[in-house]
């Protein structure tokens, strides 16, 4: 177990180092001068140069890389070029939008997918199985921004039940904030739920063919008892894997959804920062996202060990 853990941790650390090099390198070769971008077309050269040195852009590349990594280890993410406020403040403001959104979507998709998967697997080959999986297939194929626009037109423009977009902030109250996140969460959750339902179903079907299930059935356990007590637990491994993957996928998916709903989340922060060449913000946020994904993957690996006792000794 310890060796397994240590190996996973090392892989995670190596990922972080490589990611930091890639992120820094890619942004280095990206053309565009943030100072010029901030000051606009008619700004004087003097003004541009003054701003460049103020932003530390006149220092050599290696110095900037080690400064950046070193500062990050001290949890100092630097100052945004465009907003001239600490990056960490910007991130903190955005996380309170993106994280609840991702969690809402994840919860919603799991809450839809697991029962549907169970239902379809237990009625394998029946009409209801075919219909459920047909809908799921459709859900996988349809992009979430299309869902998003559909939801906006129905619930915001036509029925005027919820706002078409924007985020009032949590200090406006929990209900208005949740209301603003509802449509985006649904738009994010539906395609995810479709994938997850299919995985749950096929995971269950694989397990249901195993010897121990037949043994359990032979011992006289009911169908549903076998399904819940013996099959589901083992079928959860692929589900957890997909959930882990979906988390990183969700973080990326929120970029699109945050744009459609103009939510001030992390995704939009990155997109805006790229356009404005606010390199320090892009670097920091991307690294934070990498850390989040690596952590989730680590947790997923750990949960394998919990779900499947064999992993605790092997590997």
């Amino acid at each position: 177990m310890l060796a397994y853990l240590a190996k996973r941790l090392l892989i995670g650390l190596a990922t972080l180092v490589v990611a930091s090099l890639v992120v820094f390198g890619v942004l280095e070769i990206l053309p565009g001068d943030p100072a010029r971008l901030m000051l606009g077309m008619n700004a004087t050269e003097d003004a541009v140069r003054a701003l460049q040195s103020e932003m530390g852009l006149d220092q050599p590349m290696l110095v900037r890389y080690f400064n950046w990594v070193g500062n990050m280890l001290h949890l100092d993410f630097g100052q945004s070029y465009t907003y001239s406020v600490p990056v960490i403040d910007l991130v903190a403001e955005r996380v309170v939008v993106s994280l609840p959104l991702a969690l809402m979507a994840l919860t919603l998709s799991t809450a839809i997918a697991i029962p549907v998967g169970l239902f379809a697997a237990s009625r394998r080959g029946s009409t209801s199985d075919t219909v459920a999986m047909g809908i799921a297939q459709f859900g996988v194929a349809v992009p979430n921004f299309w869902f998003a626009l559909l939801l906006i037109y129905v619930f915001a423009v036509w029925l005027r039940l919820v706002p078409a977009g924007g985020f009032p902030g949590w200090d406006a109250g929990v209900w208005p904030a949740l209301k603003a996140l509802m449509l985006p969460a649904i738009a994010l959750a539906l395609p995810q739920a479709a994938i997850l339902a299919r995985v749950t179903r096929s995971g269950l079907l694989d397990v249901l063919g195993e010897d121990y299930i037949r043994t359990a059935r032979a011992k006289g356990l009911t169908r549903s008892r076998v399904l819940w007590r013996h099959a589901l637990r083992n079928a959860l491994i692929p589900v957890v894997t997909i959930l882990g993957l979906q988390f990183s996928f969700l973080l990326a998916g929120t970029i699109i959804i945050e744009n459609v709903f103009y939510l001030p989340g992390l995704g939009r922060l990155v997109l805006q920062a790229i356009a404005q060449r606010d390199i320090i913000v892009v670097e920091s946020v991307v690294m934070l996202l990498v850390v989040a994904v690596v952590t989730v993957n680590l947790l997923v690996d750990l949960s394998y060990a919990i779900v499947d006792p064999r992993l605790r000794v092997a590997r």
Partner: protein
Amino acid sequence: MKIWKSVAAALALALASGTAAFAARTDLVVGVVLEPPHLDPTGGAAAAIDEIVYANLFEGLTRIGSKGEVMPGLAESWTASDDGKIYTFKLRSGVKFHDGSDFNADDVKFSLNRARAEDSTNAQKQIFAAIDTVEVIDPTTVKITLSHPEGLFLYNMGIGDAVIVAPESADTNKEKPIGTGPFKFDSWAKGSSIKLVKTDGYWGDPVALDKVEFRIIPDAASAVPALLSGDVQAFPNAQVGDALPQIEADPRLKVVIGTTEGETLLSFNNKKPPFDKLEVRQAIASAIDRKAIIDGASSGRGLPIGSHMSPTSPAYIDLTETYPHDVAKAKEYLKAAGLENGFKATLKLPPPAYARDGGEIIASQLREIGIDLEIIPVEWADWLSKVFTEKDFDATIVSHTEANDIDIYGRSGYYFQYENPAFNKVIADLAVENDDAKRNALLGEAQKILATDVPAVFLFELPKTGIWDAKLEGLWENSPIQANDVTKVKWAQ
């Protein structure tokens, strides 16, 4: 009994909301495409800053009106010496900054000196270059001495970069702007919205709105539902693309097409062969059909231009027929340039639709005379560094949205790489001319030189598509400067 109670309650409620409906609304949500990097108009040229704070939050000595005219601002009047070098401004009294401190001549002196200081990051530093001294005569009188007369001085004192700030708050204006305007800063949720509220005890006409929120909606696809759902009640500069007919058909909304100061150009690298040859530029100008470009790249809504001047300007002269659309003539010009077989070049296009769509049309029009343009789409950041700063381009399409910027063709090192001593002479004369009639004559001369010499093909004036609630009054129809002045906005009863 219970039933009667609830009926009575319902009636009371209905009455209450009925009376509320008679009182005019006092809040407004305005949609803007770009979020400003900060809120100090004296510390950055981003139009997005002025679009929120200009005239609403910050004020200058003079002020630009909805037609581009110069009006009194914090200075209620002024006098100029005969030689045009000394301006004496009479300031309004009783004006206060939003933090409660008094506005007086010292603030004017501080602001102007700060803007023109050595280490100033004011993006329009050059407009203060002519200022020699700023003297405080008394708390409400300021004397500004120029080293040479400057034709646009009063106008320049009215733009966003010249607003008056207080020494105590100048350094924190980026995050927490303190001005003298009728609205004061309330809050800024980064990436989401900026809120302003009415200032009590404002020196001028009180504003009708209590609250104004500028909501940042960068995506055209999101702007349409935001307007249709009533979340956002005004989009002064809407980019809604194909959805415009749908919005026009909605009686709750009003679509107002106005003008901007955005001259949209096909500009050339005038130092790079073959664009350094006049005949080549003439050939391109003759091969281009403006109408087709306006139809395709601007939904038929831009005004054709023949030189670098907005058709709404009093100095404008129509030069669109200098090189009429004539393919045969274009081929002759090419032949005269020794390039009868045409040539290959690149066309770098920034992201706005006018550039990307316009570029396709121009490339196809030029193909008819044998010029093969390779289209290279670029991002804004890329465009600014590669095309604008490094001059690494053959041709590009961009809209120059600053007002009164015809002098850019005379700036050395400007990306056009255009050099014409005759033009520079006109600009030099213009810079020191105060008389309007003489200024217009000089501006006419400058326009003619550009139209004939084609450092760029002048395509059209960018239209301003404003969309707002049909009950809303007082928004600017045109965009003489990049501002959303909401000080006169009110809801119809």
